[in-house]
């Protein structure tokens, strides 16, 4: 290929990726809509706050699962770590929320950085087991070191107002939701830039075919460690937010079901395009609220059923559902395909 042609191809590619990275019109509407919901439903602020934090947690899983294709059954490790780091800092008298947020994210990132090399060996099953094992170990560590974490009793602490102005916590649930919203928005924008950066494209290459990526000079190891650390920081921030806005930390933050739930949220919303985690988390929290209001004990059943159907129907084919719906309603209009 001659040099001008190569440059032209490069230009076209660059233009293509630039176009893809641009902000599209539904995005501001989405964020304004979320903001409107916070102001419109002050009585439901607590659950909105929970959904926002769950969205951040699911976003962090999307960074590793959706972008880099790394499965994890122990993502709750970083949620718990961030929550406990923020709570312990607050209980020691450093009550500033932003300081606690940074500390929680930092601690989670540190553990993510240290544990990420474990993910580089073996297959998916090994990764599932390693991540699960790490989260269980951290949970046991929190359980055994009651002098620091309060053990099964949890911790008692109070938070100062955000930036010294906006009080959060039980009395200011709407402020808490706004605080979570602001953090989520900022971190989302960063994640979005990351996903469209050369680094994000390299991760996509690694996800699709690691061998081929390394043959093209895109080494996997350092990039996987990097994205895992970032994702850990995100999950740590979600944990810190959860601790600060509810002012409760408990050992169940490290539980297996937290890791399973967040995976479920991401799968409901769809992995790989960042909004999936947010939509899935909102759907999950609302669904859980509605179902558990109807049948408080058995709501898990319906979540499980949804999951089984989702997998059996094929997660990829869900995206094609609208078209199939048309085919179902008006079979003569739509071209016939495999049922």
């Amino acid at each position, binding site marked *: 290929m001659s040099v001008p042609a190569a440059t032209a191809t490069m230009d076209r590619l660059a233009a293509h990726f630039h176009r893809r990275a641009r902000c599209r019109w539904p995005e501001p509407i989405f964020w304004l809509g979320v903001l409107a919901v916070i102001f419109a439903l002050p009585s439901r602020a607590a659950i909105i706050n929970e959904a926002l934090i769950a969205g951040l947690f699911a976003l962090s899983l999307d960074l590793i699962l959706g972008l880099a294709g790394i499965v994890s059954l122990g993502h709750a490790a970083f949620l718990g770590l961030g929550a406990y780091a923020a709570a312990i800092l607050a209980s020691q008298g450093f009550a500033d929320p932003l300081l606690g947020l940074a500390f929680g994210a930092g601690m989670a990132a540190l553990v993510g950085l240290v544990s990420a090399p474990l993910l580089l060996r073996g297959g998916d099953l090994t990764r599932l087991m*390693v991540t699960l*094992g790490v989260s269980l170990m951290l949970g046991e560590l929190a359980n055994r070191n009651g002098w620091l974490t309060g053990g099964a009793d949890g911790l008692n602490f109070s938070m100062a107002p955000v930036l010294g102005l906006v009080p959060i916590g039980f009395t200011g649930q709407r402020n808490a939701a706004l605080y979570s919203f602001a953090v989520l928005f900022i971190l989302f924008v960063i994640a979005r830039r990351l996903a469209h950066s050369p680094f994000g494209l390299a991760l996509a290459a690694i996800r699709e075919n690691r061998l081929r990526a390394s043959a093209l000079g895109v080494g996997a190891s350092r990039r996987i460690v990097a994205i895992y650390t970032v994702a850990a920081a995100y999950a740590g921030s979600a944990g810190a937010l959860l601790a600060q806005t509810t002012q409760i930390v408990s050992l169940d933050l490290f539980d297996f079901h937290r890791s399973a739930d967040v995976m479920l949220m991401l799968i409901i919303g769809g992995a790989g395009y960042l909004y999936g985690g947010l939509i899935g988390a909102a759907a999950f929290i609302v669904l859980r609220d509605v179902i558990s209001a109807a049948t408080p004990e058995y709501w898990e*059943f319906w979540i499980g*059923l949804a999951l089984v159907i989702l*997998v059996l129907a094929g997660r990829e084919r869900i995206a094609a559902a609208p078209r199939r719906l048309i085919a179902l309603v008006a079979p003569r209009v739509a071209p016939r395909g495999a049922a």
Partner: protein
Amino acid sequence: MLTILLDGVAYGMLLFVLASGLSVTLGLMNFINLAHGAFAMIGGYVTALLMNRAGVPFLATLPAAFLIPAAVGVVLERTLYRRLYGASPLDQVLFTIGLVLMAMPIAAYLIGDEPQQVHLPAWLSGRIEIHGVGIGVYRLFIIVVCGAIAAALQMFLIKTRFGAQLRAAVDDARVAQGLGINVDRIFAIAFAVGSGLAGLGGALAADVVGGIDPSFPVKFLVTFLIVITIGGSNGIIGALIGSLLLGVLDVAGKYYAPSIGAFIIYGVMVVTLIVRPQGLFARGDAR
């Protein structure tokens, strides 16, 4: 000292029977079946309910505790599991987590939240002294029964025609099919045996773990997975050694260093994964 060792061995044997089914489905058939504990729960419930509500003696309930989960297993395998044999690990994980989430409320709905106790018959309770070493009769019973199951399973997989067919089907399903082996049937039977063993393990474990309740599938899921991880996933011997190691370490750890608690077994698992991702006793190289 010896008492602790024997207790550990008994616990390990129990873990082996609980996890051996998983080493068939996960290890041999490469299916990440996180719902394994649900089959163990069914077995435990069968024994507990037959004893408490129908007055059937303990030993007589054990065959049912094997057969009913096996039947449930084969139905689920034929209808649902088989669709996901070639699926990605993530899909298998999601699907089986979904099954667990469904199994727990069903159990709570049908049977209730409170743990169902298995009351051992008199001849199995109490302790005896052998050369000055005290051991619970039931522990001894578990060691004998589970040891027999381990031996039978190993013979079944290595010596019988079925075992050879199963290993062939796992190594290369297409070639095995071409050689006239009915791979579908083989997998269905293997899955049924795995589920049945889980049920039997659940029935035997009911007394040791303080009754069967709806949270059983999740409570022991992690333990099963650790056994398979430590033992390596492609052999009964690996699973047996893994379970015994885990059982002894866990019991000894709880006795000698209670402050560390469950940390030991998680630590062993993570270290194992770092040193040998394919398991301690796996043959061949990692995939």
